[in-house]
């Protein structure tokens, strides 16, 4: 426990002071990707916690992203207002869609969210107003606050770090509260939860909206970071990536797992210089290996190693006793 805390604090210090050590834009970019992917993976996991595997998370990111792009470019509203606003819009759309969708069993939900993501991409590509085939270009940077004018990646870095901190704190508060326990109980056994009087559909909607809210604000961040909002950022493929981060990292730890997963996989690609073309293949292979051999994800690795060591010790003990007997 003590070691875990020290490790977390070390990582936090590294994250916060990182840019001061090396402000190479390339690595800034990589870590920014790691951070917002973590947010997406964490918020996705929240929806999984209530028993629904959503394959539309990238689409909801797209809702937030495109909403934000349109709000800022067409209505001239400041990014700082557009950010929470797009999150809200995404949450509302999630609420509306969730109403029919969350009533159906997990398998149907899975399938229909997959279809929704595909549909979303098709709509975006065919509607000029939402970007058309090319996408929305020229999305401006966030409005400057004093000296922070977002001309350097460092500014974006701290912004996304801040958003990640908000996400982590919010999720932590949720999971340790009564509502968090309700979510878990719904996820573990919906019927049982219902039988003790929990209004299942209401809490599912809440969880779903919160999860999609964070997807939405991430989308908003992303489009203003890339100055672009195109359908290719929000495809079903992207939804799968999010899912892989969360599962490879470990579903057992709702905050740590996704972060570990996102950082490990993305940094792995960077350090091993895996070509973009081979990336899906490698990720898929890792995912399948994890499912078969390390079900609870990378984050359970220390625990597993400990358990394995213990077993080894016991085995040795028994052998020694055998000898002396």
């Amino acid at each position: 426990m003590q070691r875990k805390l020290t490790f977390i604090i070390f990582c936090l210090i590294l994250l916060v002071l990182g840019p001061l050590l090396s402000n190479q834009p390339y690595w800034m970019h990589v870590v920014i990707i790691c951070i917002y992917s973590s947010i997406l993976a964490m918020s996705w996991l929240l929806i999984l916690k209530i028993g629904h595997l959503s394959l539309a998370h990238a689409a909801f990111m797209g809702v937030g992203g495109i909403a934000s792009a349109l709000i800022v470019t067409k209505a001239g509203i400041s990014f700082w207002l557009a950010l929470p606003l797009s999150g809200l819009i995404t949450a509302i759309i999630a609420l509306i869609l969730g109403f029919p969708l969350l009533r159906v069993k997990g398998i149907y939900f899975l399938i229909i969210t997959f279809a929704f993501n595909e549909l979303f991409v098709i709509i975006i590509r065919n509607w000029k107003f939402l970007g058309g085939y090319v996408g929305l270009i020229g999305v401006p940077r966030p409005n400057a606050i004093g000296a922070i004018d977002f001309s350097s990646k460092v500014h974006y870095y701290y912004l996304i770090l801040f958003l990640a901190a908000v996400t982590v704190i919010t999720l932590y508060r949720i999971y340790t509260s009564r509502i968090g326990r309700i979510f878990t109980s719904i996820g573990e056994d919906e019927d049982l939860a219902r039988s003790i009087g929990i209004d299942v559909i209401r809490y599912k909607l809440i969880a779903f909206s919160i999860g999609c809210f964070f997807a939405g604000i991430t989308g908003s961040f992303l489009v203003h970071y890339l100055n672009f909002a195109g359908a290719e950022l929000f495809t079903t493929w992207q939804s799968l990536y999010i899912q892989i981060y969360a599962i490879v990292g470990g579903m057992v730890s709702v905050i740590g797992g996704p972060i570990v997963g996102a950082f490990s996989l993305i940094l792995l690609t960077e350090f091993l210089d895996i070509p973009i073309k081979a990336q899906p293949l490698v990720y898929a292979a890792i995912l399948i290996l994890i499912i078969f051999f390390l079900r609870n994800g990378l984050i359970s690795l220390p625990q597993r190693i400990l358990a394995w060591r213990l077993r080894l010790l016991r085995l040795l003990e028994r052998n020694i006793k055998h000898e002396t007997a």
Partner: protein
Amino acid sequence: MPVAQIIFNALLLTMLYALVSSGLTLVLGIARIVNFAHGALYMLGAYVAYYVFQEAGLPFPLALALSVLSVGLFGILIDKLLFRRLAGQFFAAVIVSLGLVFFVEGGGALIFSEQERSIAPFVSGNVDIFGATLSVERIIVIFAGAFVMLALFWFINHTKQGAAMRAVAQDSEAATLQGVNFNYTSALAMGIGAGLAGFAGALLAPVFGVVDPYMGQTIMFKAILVITVGGFGSVPGAFTAALIIGFVESFGFWYVEHWVTAMLFGLVIIVLLIRPRGILGKEYIMRH
């Protein structure tokens, strides 16, 4: 409005969707797996046809046969290696099948390059029926598709193995008590399902003219719509739904173009709300 043309197109789509969806729904009902990689299998079939027919110049029927065999065998391989080990763990199996999509499509992009390849039609020529100009190729495809569907129906309903499949789909435990080899039947279902997808991919490749590693995604989307409307695990349901969706899409496309997809999606949502089991499906039981 060239009605004959639209109807003809609808029939083509029907056959395509029926072939792909039957395979998917078969695997779902018997092996209890939602194989998201089904679209990728379709893509593989198309690529085999590309290499055999277009690149090597061998006769098209040979390309078809090779597609069915190779993709079918690949399907059995996936089943034995991955899905059998996760028997009963529905959630894990879904994750793995999603990972497979990444693996097969990513692998395809790596091996075949993301560039789309074109394929020439396997016969040329058009005929005029009811005032519509129809390509001979497409007519053959429609008949070939119908033939295979009939063969499938015959197999499922009039052979011992087909009976075994129906038994497993109904109640796998009772089926094994009757002496049905579950693993064998499951692998067979997966092989047939994959073979159907490969066949569809190969058959339709010259018709659509192009192949690319991600072509399976749109098909997967449509196949999912079809099996949801038709009922999970029901092959006749898949055919009926393919008919409905094929016609809605063909006529819808004429009027509202790409928005027809939104219409189809809306249709599926309605089906889910009113009758989640689909038209001909039985209540799908998820083993926890």
